[in-house]
């Protein structure tokens, strides 16, 4: 067999995977960029697309609602990631202890993740409803003040964070459990012999060894929270007063409610940039 063929052989095996990557990832990215540089709306989509350069990006950055959506995204993602990671880590560590029926408990904790996001969103919409929701009903029965969980602009984003936390935490539990299972238990035995307490073992053994899993988990849940808009769309539609419109929902509304496909594409490019920046930050600062 010629040496050229031998050298080229691995690429033949890689070709199908690369083709799929190109068709479903690379091409849509370039196509989205192409759309963002042209004037494409529902009214013009079947006509010749006019090249307008960075006009869509200028429109985007001059829209105060876009900046508002970035601020809301920061709050939504920050709250969701902190709660998903914190609670997920706590539960996975607790389940690693010698707990009876830990397998059953793990299965129960995974349930939210098996439910469609749309159903989860509708469920929380009814739980949080100002007038008919179970939460306000319980609060009133306990003699407490009811709250505008979905109607108060100052509170609504945290209602969405709670819903997203409920929905997304199971992934963290699963992922970190896999990480915890990969740690050799004899390390903990040695630490106990050396007099380490459980907390010190957790801080000085568990966390450092779990770091690669933590980094990947944080990257994934951050990206998902940035891109997620099902919960916002269904629970509040982005209101009241844009106080629950994240950047992903802003992008969706521009493209599919207002028909401004190229402005939505421009917002999509900005979102991709945010996601890549976040991944870079995590990888750079947390992998040391």
């Amino acid at each position: 067999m010629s040496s050229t063929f031998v050298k080229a052989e691995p690429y033949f095996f890689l070709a199908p995977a690369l083709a799929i990557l190109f068709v479903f990832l690379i091409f849509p990215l370039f196509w989205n960029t192409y759309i963002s540089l042209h004037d494409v709306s529902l009214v013009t989509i079947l006509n010749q697309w006019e090249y307008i350069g960075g006009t869509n990006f200028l429109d985007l950055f001059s829209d105060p609602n876009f900046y508002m959506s970035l601020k809301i995204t920061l709050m939504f993602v920050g709250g969701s990631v902190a709660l998903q990671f914190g609670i997920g880590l706590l539960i996975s560590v607790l389940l690693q202890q010698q707990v009876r029926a830990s397998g059953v408990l793990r299965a129960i904790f995974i349930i939210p993740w098996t439910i469609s996001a749309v159903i989860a969103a509708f469920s929380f919409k009814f739980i949080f409803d100002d007038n008919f929701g179970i939460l306000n009903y319980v609060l009133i029965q306990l003699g407490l003040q009811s709250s505008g969980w979905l109607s108060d602009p100052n509170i609504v984003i945290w209602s969405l964070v709670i819903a997203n936390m409920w929905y997304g935490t199971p992934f963290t539990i699963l992922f970190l459990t896999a990480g915890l299972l990969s740690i050799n238990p004899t390390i903990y035995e040695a630490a106990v012999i050396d007099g380490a307490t459980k907390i010190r073992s957790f801080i000085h053994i568990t966390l450092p060894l779990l770091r690669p899993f933590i980094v990947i988990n944080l990257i994934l849940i951050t990206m998902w929270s940035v891109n997620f808009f099902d919960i916002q769309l269904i629970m509040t539609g982005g209101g009241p007063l844009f106080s629950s419109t994240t950047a992903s929902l802003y992008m969706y509304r521009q493209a599919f409610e207002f028909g401004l496909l190229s402005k939505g594409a421009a917002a999509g490019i900005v979102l991709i940039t945010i996601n890549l920046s976040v991944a870079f930050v995590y990888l750079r600062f947390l992998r040391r």
Partner: protein
Amino acid sequence: MKISKLACTCLVLAILLFISLGQVVVTTPVEAQKQQVTLTAIVAEPKERWDTLFSDALQKLRQKHPDMDIQVDYRVLPYDATRTQILTAMVGRSPIDLISVDQIWLGEFAEGGFLTDLTERANTWGRENDWYQTNWDGGKYNGKVYGIWAWTDIRAMWYWKDLLNQAGVDPNSLKTWNGYIAGAKSLNDALNGQGIQGMHLVGADHSPDMWYPYLWMLGGEILEQKNGHPTNGTYWFPAYNSTQGVKALEFIKQEIDAGIKPQTNHFWGQEFADKKFAVMLEGSWLLGTFPREQWSNLTQSVGMLPMFSVPNENNKTATMMGGWILSIPETSTNKDLSWELLTIMLQPEVLSTMLQKEGYLPTQKPIGEGPYATQLNTTIPYYKEMIAMIPIGHSRPNIPEYPQIADNIKQAIDEVYFGIKEPKQALDDAALKSAKVLGW
């Protein structure tokens, strides 16, 4: 032995194959000559109305074309999904023969080249004069007919008689703005302890729809034509921040100040049927939230004022009309047959059956005032009163930019709801954004 077993198996399989092929071949000569046609449609929920309409209309269509085997494959989708699916199909050039179009989508779809120009077909059909003028015009864009408004709905004031009695509120007092505000306070005082709110106020996405009647009754408009547009010469310009608009939004502010809370979640009348509110401005579809068997006695417990409250008794009221338009997409490969099906669906004898079952209002005079009116009047509570509102009904603009304009108006309304801006400032800021959207 093995070979003979194999041969027997092959023989049996061959016989079975021959019989099954024979089933296909042995058909009656007439069936073999019938042209198979399947018309496809994308329509909006609820499903029951389309089941009735398509089944009755298809029967008639088949009678007219005995040489054809006509089927209708219709997909019934939620409101948002209907619009998305239609757009996806149009952009992807998928052949669809019939669609239900919300009146506010018409301009966008027509401008995008998604709809068939039905002007000539409509002229030949010759039924334009059967339609109420507003409803006929609602199917037109830039002077051309792109759809036929099939049925409509109006918004009216519904109230629970026993709750108003309990609070000592005379329903007639709600006809004026001052009476409405006073009634809200009395109802809240009397009913809040029972977990019932006096008045419903829309805080959901369609809040502009419930504000427009106040704008219209004062003589205002959402948009007006203006000269000097940078590219179009004469084009639409925001008019809703006029003095009439400001006055209309000030009334909304008075409602907030009177303790009426905007409801961000909307259940399309179910919250009224569940007696969570004593008074609700809602569409005529509210009747559908009550079981059909209660319709005959409904007027004893539920009252209806065919109006939005007016500033004073000298003002004429107004309301907003919605409903659905039937259109034929440009991608349809059976335009003539689709048009025929559409016209059959709109025949009074076909459409009135569905309207009677579902409680919708007609857009055509033969059903609204003619012989079919008696039948509908005896079945649908307050039918006569709702029909009487059609002449005072207005429709929203059907231009492509309308969704963004509605969003600007909603933001203005929300800013007043939350006390962030005064009505004039909120409307002026919204109008500035709308002007930019319209290309000024």
